[in-house]
């Protein structure tokens, strides 16, 4: 009897100690959390300010963020930073964020851990700024609209911040594009003023508290989605960088139903087809030349190019205005001066410094492929991209190629405009290989002359002269 109770007690002790050691979450609590959700475009941007405090006995070096599975699936960017310095000398230092797993997360919540620069000691607090961007999460409702209707979308979220920690104080602001909000879930205290919805302040929330909300509002912004974008960057050491971009564009908003009347669309643009879009703006580098915009039929003449000293802007109009569910395929190509993008690093390697992402403004790219075609004869290619990408090598053939050009292929899914940051491709190249093409031409012509000489020296006559 005594022994049995002892064993039971021992087991209880072990299990309780195991439980407390395995879940590190109660060591940290969130003193205050402020969330600002920007719903003004088709891409959802969330700015989160967290004030975390270490209440545990040991040091804490990581802070966890939790996301519901649907959000984690569509998460395009997650960035965290912390402010250092005071007042005017304040700078934001980026922190590394990595996905992690914990055994006891409810309902498949995905966790990301932010590594702090200086571990938090007991009783210390830190302020973290987090930005995350979610795509494809505004659901059009009604899912089909006619030409004269405006587009309404649903936004699903939680009134409370999903967090593995105890949250002391929490507030959420949701910014809608206009003050036309059809309905929104009330989780008191909830307040709406103009284009802003406020959820909170909520006090003393237990870990993983979740209260689903739905906001139904008007959003007529272009839901431009590039389903597939292939960018080919061809380097020529003879002074040019040739870029070709193959787009498969789609309007991902509410599907168009019924007929399309061009007359109505043209004559009453303010009420007809407000959710459609007919032109897009691409931001290209300065000093761009020989720009073309075409598709399988041929040149599309409705485009305008403005060249500036800082950037060039290319305004393109597809052949028809895009309504919900409609697609357009086209190609944009341009040349760029080599000296703006190709450099030689001190260790003798050549590198290309080019912008990742899609040049179209406010556009989501589902699948982006960048092919960097290196000049013939280049060796040891390697890439430096600031975020994880799939990369592979292949060989492509262009004019006057014999062995083919080494091509670095970079692939990434779910690209937002915030991915437009420079990346580098390094390679070794001996400039003597530049002479391969002219020597090939020279030897071809020389072979012709040799053939002429040989023909004139051979005696083809039957009779002796």
């Amino acid at each position: 009897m005594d022994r049995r109770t002892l064993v039971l007690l021992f087991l209880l002790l072990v299990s309780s100690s195991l439980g407390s050691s395995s879940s590190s979450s109660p060591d940290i609590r969130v003193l205050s959390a402020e969330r600002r959700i920007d719903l003004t475009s088709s891409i959802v941007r969330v700015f989160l300010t967290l004030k975390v405090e270490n209440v545990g006995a040991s040091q804490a070096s990581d802070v966890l963020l939790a996301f519901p599975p649907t959000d984690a699936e569509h998460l395009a960017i997650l960035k965290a930073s912390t402010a250092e310095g005071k007042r005017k000398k304040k700078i934001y230092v980026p922190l590394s964020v990595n996905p992690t797993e914990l055994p006891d997360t409810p309902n498949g919540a995905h966790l990301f851990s932010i590594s702090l620069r200086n571990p938090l000691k007991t009783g210390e607090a830190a302020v973290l700024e987090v930005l995350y961007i979610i795509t494809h999460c505004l659901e059009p409702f009604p899912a089909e609209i006619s030409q004269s209707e405006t587009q309404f979308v649903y936004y699903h979220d939680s009134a409370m911040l999903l967090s593995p920690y105890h949250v002391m104080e929490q507030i959420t602001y949701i910014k809608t594009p206009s003050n036309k909000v059809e309905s929104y879930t009330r989780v008191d205290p909830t307040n709406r003023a103009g284009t802003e919805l406020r959820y909170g302040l909520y006090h003393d929330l237990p870990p993983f508290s979740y209260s689903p909300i739905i906001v139904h509002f008007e959003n007529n912004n272009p839901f431009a989605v590039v389903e597939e974008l292939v960018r080919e960057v061809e380097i020529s050491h003879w002074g040019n960088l040739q870029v070709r971009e193959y787009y498969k564009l789609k309007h991902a908003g509410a599907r168009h139903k019924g007929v399309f009347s061009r007359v109505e669309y043209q004559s009453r643009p303010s009420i007809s087809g407000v959710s459609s879009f007919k032109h897009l703006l691409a931001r290209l580098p300065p000093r761009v030349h020989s720009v073309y915009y075409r598709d399988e039929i041929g040149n599309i003449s409705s485009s305008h190019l403005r060249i500036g000293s800082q950037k060039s802007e290319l305004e393109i109009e597809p052949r028809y205005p895009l309504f919900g569910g409609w697609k357009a395929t086209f190609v944009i190509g341009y040349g760029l001066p080599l000296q703006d993008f190709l450099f030689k690093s001190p260790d003798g390697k050549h590198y290309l410094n080019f912008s990742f992402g899609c040049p179209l403004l406010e556009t989501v790219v589902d699948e982006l492929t960048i092919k960097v075609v290196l000049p013939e004869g280049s060796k040891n290619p390697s890439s430096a991209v600031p975020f994880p990408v799939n990369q592979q090598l292949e060989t492509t053939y262009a004019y006057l190629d014999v062995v083919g050009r080494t091509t670095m292929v970079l692939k990434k899914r779910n690209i937002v405009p915030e991915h437009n940051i420079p990346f580098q491709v390094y390679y070794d190249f001996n400039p003597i290989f530049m002479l391969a093409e002219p020597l090939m031409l020279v030897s071809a012509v020389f072979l012709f002359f040799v053939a002429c000489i040989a023909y004139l020296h051979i005696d083809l006559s039957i009779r002796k002269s």
Partner: protein
Amino acid sequence: MAPKPISSPVPVAWYPSLAVLMLSIGLLVTASFFIYEATSSRRNRSLSKEIVTGAMASIFLGFGSLFLLLATGVYV
């Protein structure tokens, strides 16, 4: 040492004039090659002179056509 921008060995703006110049020199030398072939008899033709003229013409025509390709936007 900071990264050094890389530019083409020949300024890009020279490509059209280089193409015209080298192609015309090349065609002139080709013409002189064929004039020599047609006017001299088989017995007093010198092989070395033929080969030198042919090589000269092919160098000018080869580089001329390269610069023509580059000037028209076919960057090889």
